[in-house]
């Protein structure tokens, strides 16, 4: 990932993207978005497309699994896995 964004900034960006996809839910809460029914498979498609575009990466198709979109932390981990040069980019 070609950036030096701090973790908090990335977190805010991810929350903003999620809020735009499903404005009726509060994604800042520490709950399982999938289990709570806040994101369905079509939301995940929109989310992946938006994250790919925003962070200029391509999230691996094999990583598009519900558990990787369950929390903000898991989404950030996914971003790191699929594009960040190193974890220090985010720290």
């Amino acid at each position, binding site marked *: 990932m070609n950036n030096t964004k701090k973790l908090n900034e990335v977190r805010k960006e991810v929350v903003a993207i999620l809020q735009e996809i499903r404005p009726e839910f509060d994604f800042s809460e520490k709950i399982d978005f999938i289990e709570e029914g806040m994101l369905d498979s079509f939301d995940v498609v929109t989310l992946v497309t938006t994250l790919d575009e925003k962070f200029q990466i391509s999230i691996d198709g*094999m990583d598009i699994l519900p558990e990787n979109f369950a929390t903000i932390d898991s989404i950030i981990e996914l971003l790191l896995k699929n594009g960040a040069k190193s974890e220090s980019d985010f720290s």
Partner: protein
Amino acid sequence: MELKVNLTFHNKKITGILTILPSNIVKFEDEMDNYNFSKAKSLKLKLAMGYNTHRIAKDNTTVSDLCVYGLNYLFEKDYLKKEDIDALILITQSPDYFMPPTSNVIQGKLGLKHDMICLDINQGCAGFEIGLYQAFMLLEQSEVNKVVLLNADILSKKVSKRDRNSNPLIGDGASITIVEKSDKPNVINCNIKMNGTGYDVLMVPAGGFKLPSSPETAEMKEDKAGNFRSLDNLVMKGDEVFNFVQREVPPMIENLLKSSKRDIEEVNYFMFHQPNKFMLRKLADKMKIPYDKMPNNVVENYGNASGVSIPTAICHNISEELKSDDMFLCFAGFGVGLTWASILMNVGHLDFCEFLEY
């Protein structure tokens, strides 16, 4: 994972492809209100998945109607002679009848010679590859010189209009591919894999002998995601299909290239089955194939008509090139069964490669 079923054929060629599409065009925007999500969300998905327009057969149109119409066109244009057809292979999941085979119905309607083979095969998304394998195998016989491969499906009739998983992307159509012996010592590399434990990932639960259609099976019910469908309708577990494709297709293509001693750069086009734009882009990214070498524009223009999707992609994207040049193409189909199969072969100097509206 190494594939075990690698098939090799020699001295075979494709000499023409015709794709027959219903003239009825249905727009995604006109169906958005059927689905259980907001318009804003629908429009986002339209871009990501490639939903736009799809071709839907009229209620009384059958698979044999589409095939007979296309074959008569080829006879009239003198692209094909009735007496030259030694075998008719029909790949479909929407036959005219349970019995007899629809290929026999087509043979009868056209008045073809009796000294030939008619064969129906129940396959879908990998139906182009399965049909080509069958054609290549028949052509190994000295008496078989020309095989007509028909891929045809009208599965929109089995899809609930209120099923946002399947309805926006389904399409109807047929294709005719002429396969013949070749004097050139060409090599065709293929592979295939199947996993019947995933039989229920894509299926129509009722209507067969296991669960005959009844008023109970026709009852519309809402699933967890808000789709309405009955047991008579096609059901697709979209997440499972997606994961299966992302897991199995890249190693299959890698294996095919390896066994053919070729690399991605040597392939002119990767003509893959067309489930939706998102899935194809993810495959292209994973395999590092440029988007312009792997077209993903069939769903947005015509919808996904199972085994017809690859001939449609060919006719839409490279028909002129294939009439004048030789190209090295990679075909890959994946879906119902579960089945996944691929072919690497030279295709070119076709006698015809075009669309026909029904």
